[in-house]
């Protein structure tokens, strides 16, 4: 997939020492997260240390990129005005089956067809030489209903 000029897809991530492996994997069409070597927790966004056990050791692990729509918005007013041709577009918080949540654009789905818990999987959108962004598209079937959240405060 390639992006149109002037689109929000032209927002280029500026990798740093923590995130460079994530973006390099995206450029190769692969979603990777850090798996903590101390306790096995998978984490996102990339971080130097594990939030569960404070281990500084980890390995980047490929993911199948399948998940559900946890929440979504439909952007109708273009910010900035120069991306007027892009709207409306859908931005979502995807909860991957591996337990990590990540924000991403949703593609190949109409705003009116969005449902909570919709099954989606990752695609990679090539926006510039050596740069690809993870986006999600529907899998074509509805996932099982999410269990109600616990631990309410």
């Amino acid at each position, binding site marked *: 997939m390639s992006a149109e000029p002037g689109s929000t897809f032209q*927002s280029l991530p*500026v990798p740093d020492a923590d995130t460079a492996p994530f973006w390099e994997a995206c450029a190769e069409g692969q979603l990777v997260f850090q798996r903590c070597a101390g306790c096995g927790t998978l984490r996102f966004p990339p971080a130097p240390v594990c939030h569960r056990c404070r281990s500084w050791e980890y390995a980047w692990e490929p993911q199948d990129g399948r998940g559900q729509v946890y929440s979504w*918005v439909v*952007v*109708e007013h273009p*910010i900035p005005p120069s991306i007027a041709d892009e709207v409306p577009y859908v*931005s979502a918080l995807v909860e991957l089956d591996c337990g990590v949540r990540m924000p991403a654009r949703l593609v190949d789905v109409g705003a009116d067809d969005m449902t909570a818990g919709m099954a989606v999987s990752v695609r990679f959108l090539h*926006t510039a030489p050596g740069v690809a962004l993870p986006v999600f598209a529907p899998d074509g079937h509805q996932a099982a209903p999410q269990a109600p959240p616990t631990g*309410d405060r």
Partner: protein
Amino acid sequence: MSDEFSGRSAITGIGQTEYTRDSGKSVAHLAAESCANAVADAGVDPVEVDGIVTFGVNDTVFPRAVATQLGMTELGFQQYIHGGGESSVMSIGLAGMAVATGMARHVLVFRALNGRSGHRLGGSDAEQALSEGHDDEQFTLPAGLISPAQRMALAAKRHMIRYGTTTRDYAAVAVTFREHAQLNDRALMRKPMTIEDHQASRMIVDPFRLFDICQENDGACAVLVSRADEASSLRHAPVFVLAAGQASRPRPGYAWEFYTSEDDIADDYSGVLAPQLWKQARLGPDDVDVVSLYDCFTAAVISQLEGFGFAPRGEGGAFVSDGGIRRDGAKPVNTQGGMLSEAYIHGINGVLELVRQLRGDAGERQVPGASVGLASGFANTTGCGLVVGR
């Protein structure tokens, strides 16, 4: 813990500038004007003010510049907090800590910005920012989540998914605060609004319409926080700081990048913060007479009502739709119109209204017998609160 702080400081002066869409003044001018007014309101000589605090997101002036301009020759305690809702009223808590510990006698707290004529937080000058995503923005900008409204709407949508909150509940928030603003000459947005007006307003980022999003404007607000044992000798009856605090859901992330949260993001910081505030202040939600909730968005009012215990979990929308937050309702909120209708001075204008209410100076807006108030600062998974009382 609570004995070290509660009641040991008081708000003794309040000041502000006119709220406009184009002040024609520098931010430094706005800051100095609001601070000078607060000091005069307290009846304190600026030479006696030995502390100054502000907060902002690179859009306000350095506090010691204001101190210099006001002739604060004994300046000691000085802090510039980077942040918005997550720290807003905590800036007053910080000033309270300084005076309660004896590090300072009188501390000015201000928020000054040309938020409409200058840098706009809402993102309409996002062209530059859009091209590159640094730090945490490298995950949000490419996802098309550029403005605070777009990001906050993701959490609000969760509240709708989980609890059935509707945009008509949002409308009730906006309509209530617009009604409150009718009695406030300082309010910028006073044109009467109905539920239907709200529902017909332009969709910005579904589920947020234009009337769900607070305005941007120019202006400044300031308070003077003084040691409690000196407060009683000043011009007004003191409004004591009974509690202050900040809290977060687990793994709050940055201000709006709450995808790090391990919780359901439908519920905001307030449920975590509330017990700390009530314990410090030695009172509960039923004791609060008047409230200033950080209303950057209508949805934020609903989730904060629930977290602070003014409405049952998931029923904040119904509470508002049933009239609960009206000036004559069970729990008056944003009696001067809030940020949605008065002005967007990042929560400090809401504190000024609480002080007026507790002093008995709110005129037609007065909540009879108001003696305990709560003000909040909201950044979804993180935020702050302030309890004040007579």
